[in-house]
């Protein structure tokens, strides 16, 4: 026993800084979330500010603005998840069909690239390309219809551009995981299928997709954890006052009202609500998947 402890000394020398990090920057903020139940003020700090019970939450769920913001968040993220979900799968399946390796390499290099650009870059590109004055898309649109269209200033087209830019940035990179899963499918299954006269389509349907099922379920569970969040950078960059009715989401609201407007307790309550719903959604998704033997844990 003493030998075991002595053997652990160097390990703990490595690990203690890590423990301190997680406590200080992950668990302290977790307990700091109690200010959602307080009326926070600078003078008293987190510990000594007065308790107010559920008041912040009551205020949140009785204010039309915050309700609309929660609704916007759900609409935008569910659209992004469900519309974006098939793209990496299709991309991976198509890449898997390619036999010319140089072609596959080139396409992979290109489609992985946008993942490494920040949303500042991607939004900058989007704003330039869709600019009403002399943007590329607007130019094409004008030559087709004879008039310009304010793509970024109409709710419908704004949503489409938002979802589309997300797919543009991440579909390629997300395909890597499906490609990895595809390499593990037994090739004899394809041979057997083609012996039986199955066309390419039927092979995809009966061999490829079942082979991807586990990965698809896994990715779906993970995406459930993001239903309540819309990445701050993307929304913050693309939104404008004209479409604020649909583009203001939880993260931007917490930043603007909470940090800039010093409404710490109210927005901490909103943040806590967001975290809890995310946690519950992941647990539910995993529970359902586990019932079918595909759980994450």
């Amino acid at each position: 026993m003493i030998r075991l402890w002595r053997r652990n000394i160097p390990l703990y020398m490595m690990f203690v800084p890590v423990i301190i990090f997680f406590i200080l920057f992950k668990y302290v903020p977790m307990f700091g979330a109690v200010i959602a139940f307080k009326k926070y003020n600078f003078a008293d700090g987190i510990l000594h500010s007065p308790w107010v019970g559920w008041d912040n939450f009551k205020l949140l769920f009785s204010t039309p603005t915050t309700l609309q913001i929660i609704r916007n968040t759900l609409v935008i993220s569910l659209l992004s998840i469900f519309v974006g979900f098939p793209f990496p799968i299709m991309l991976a399946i198509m890449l898997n069909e390619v036999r010319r390796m140089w072609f596959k390499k080139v396409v992979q290099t290109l489609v992985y690239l946008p993942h490494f650009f920040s949303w500042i870059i991607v939004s900058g590109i989007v704003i330039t390309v869709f600019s009403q004055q002399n943007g590329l898309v607007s130019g094409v649109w004008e030559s087709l219809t004879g008039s310009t269209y304010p793509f970024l200033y109409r709710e419908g087209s704004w949503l489409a551009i938002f979802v589309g830019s997300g797919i543009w940035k991440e579909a390629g990179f997300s395909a890597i995981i499906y490609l990895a899963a595809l390499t593990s499918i037994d090739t004899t299954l394809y041979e057997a299928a083609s012996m039986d006269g199955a066309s390419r389509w039927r092979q995809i349907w009966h061999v490829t997709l079942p082979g991807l099922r586990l990965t698809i379920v896994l990715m779906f569970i993970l995406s459930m954890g993001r239903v309540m969040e819309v990445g701050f950078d993307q929304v913050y960059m693309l939104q404008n006052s004209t479409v604020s009715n649909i583009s203001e989401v939880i993260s931007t609201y917490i930043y603007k009202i909470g940090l800039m407007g010093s409404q710490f307790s109210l927005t901490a309550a909103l943040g806590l609500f967001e975290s809890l719903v995310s946690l519950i959604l992941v647990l539910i998704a995993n529970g359902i998947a586990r019932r079918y033997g595909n759980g994450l844990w």
Partner: protein
Amino acid sequence: MKPSFGEKIYLLAVYLVLAVAGLLCLLPLVHIASVSSSSLQAVASGHVTFYPIGFSLDAYKQLIEGTPIMRSFLNSVQITVFGVIFSMLFTILAAYPLTRSYFIGRRTYTFGIVFTMLFGGGLIPTYLTIRSLELINTYWSLWLPGLVSVFNLLVLRTFMENIPTEVDEASRIDGCGEWRYLLRIVLPLSTPVLATLALFYGVGYWNAFFNVLMFINEPAKFNLAVLVQQMIQSQTMLSQMNAASGSSEQIMLTPEMVNAAAIIIMVLPMMAVYPFLQRHFVKGVMIGAVKG
């Protein structure tokens, strides 16, 4: 077996769609590069597509002389270099003990770490923590809160676990201590995955935006992302004002060109390292996918 006519059509369609997808990812960037290096008249008339018209580097000149972009660039470099060093150090220190079967409390720590991936205190409590530690307006506020990415930690742990135990036993007999074993055996064997993680951290720090917006208030300390964002934001306001007033007059140099030049400057370092690291990150993601 010769492919049938239907199969040929099918394969042709696959190649075609993939080619289009690849081009779609590249062309917007080519367009921005063309805008940034064309003449003012060509950009204003909207004729620039995928190659520069009336080649000129005035936009870059104006960008470097008229905006603090060089300072922001150096700030970004500083944030990225130190950030990657700190993050890699802590990720290694976290991952290695978790791979040792005799590490006391291993399961508890693993659970405690993974739990932070599922649940967090949220933005406001994190901000208040950083502020009470008096880290606002220092780069420590960018390095410390995201020091260890749990995903990266799990990738590294999985990789280290797969190092054959015979190597371990052999070096034990030679009387090799934990630190030496980590430095001499484990880390050299992990170079591919370490390169991947360094890339992921580097990209994260280089692209850092929200944290800088939150924690850094002095413009002299802004990084490229925040500077470029402010430039683009002011352009949007400008074009909204133009659209409202109905005037078609352009301001001297369309800010679009300057913004395009700024975007290119921010993308360039990424493009420079990307080809070298591409084969590594694919491997890294796959390790992470197997045991997420």
